[in-house]
């Protein structure tokens, strides 16, 4: 699948990628449960940048994650009055399989053209390794897994400290 020009490439800062994985892993601490994190950010014509993560009050009682209209509304309320828009989400799967399930296709909250949905393997426990994730884009009314990931999602640095000698930071 190739990117349509209308779909902005989503840029994800490394720190937020790591935080996404850690949040997903936190869902699996008390039971073998999938998790979900919503991505919000700034959107321009050809690019969007994830700036904010919001974890909805999801129901994980059966090991799968589901969100109610109320919990999704609560998430959206958090960005009201800001320039942020809803870009998509990441959710976790128990093992290495990262294709959307039929349920994922049907029940993912973000179902608008351009929405991005990333499946992170192993409950996110081993971090956000982009080449191990399944990247899906909502196009023409449905989600499809993308092959050329770089046309849809790219990682960007969060912090680089290039000093040859670094002093410890103050607590």
């Amino acid at each position: 699948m190739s990117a349509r020009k209308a779909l902005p490439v989503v840029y994800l800062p490394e720190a937020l990628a790591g935080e996404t994985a850690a949040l997903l892993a936190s869902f699996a601490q008390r039971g073998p449960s999938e998790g979900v994190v919503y991505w919000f950010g700034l959107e321009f014509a050809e690019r969007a940048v994830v700036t904010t993560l919001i974890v909805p009050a999801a129901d994980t009682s059966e090991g799968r994650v589901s969100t109610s209209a109320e919990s999704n509304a609560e998430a959206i309320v958090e960005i009201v009055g800001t320039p942020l828009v809803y870009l998509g989400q990441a959710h976790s799967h128990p093992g290495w399989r990262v294709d959307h399930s039929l349920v994922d296709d049907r029940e993912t909250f973000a179902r608008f053209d351009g929405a991005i949905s990333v499946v992170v393997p192993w409950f996110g426990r081993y971090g956000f390794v982009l080449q191990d994730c399944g990247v899906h884009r909502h196009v023409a009314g449905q989600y499809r897994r993308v092959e050329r990931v770089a046309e849809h999602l790219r990682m960007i640095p969060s912090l680089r400290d290039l000093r040859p000698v670094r002093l410890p930071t103050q607590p």
Partner: protein
Amino acid sequence: MSIAPGVTIEVVQRELAVAADFAAAAGLLVDVGQVSSQKPSFTVTFQNGKGDCFHVEFDCQDYPLYPPTIEFVSGDRSERGTARLYPSGLHPMPCVCMRYNRKAYQERGGPHGDWRLVDWRLPTAQGVAIDTLAMMFSDLESKIRQSTGRMA
């Protein structure tokens, strides 16, 4: 270096109380009948997606200074560490090749010469730290659940 057995058993029992929540949610069977300060070990029975049972012994000597030694055993505990007791997909040594398994370290005969036992609580790669018994149960459960059979 070692740790007082009384400390180990207290930490193990405290963490097992937390891990019991995970075990109940995941349908794991935790057998703590053997746990004592002299022998701080217990077994957990996991199932893969096909319903095959796998019995895993956690020997927590010197825990939490060092990670447990994790070994697959037979249901009657008469056999241990053989490939047929392991689920497919794990390290062919056979071994649970994770920082939280003492057997994975080269100094204990395992494949990892690049890890130090005292660093066992560090996260693997970019991931989260697997540094409690509950997290170990969680990690093993997802690995075993994904397996489709036995290693041999």
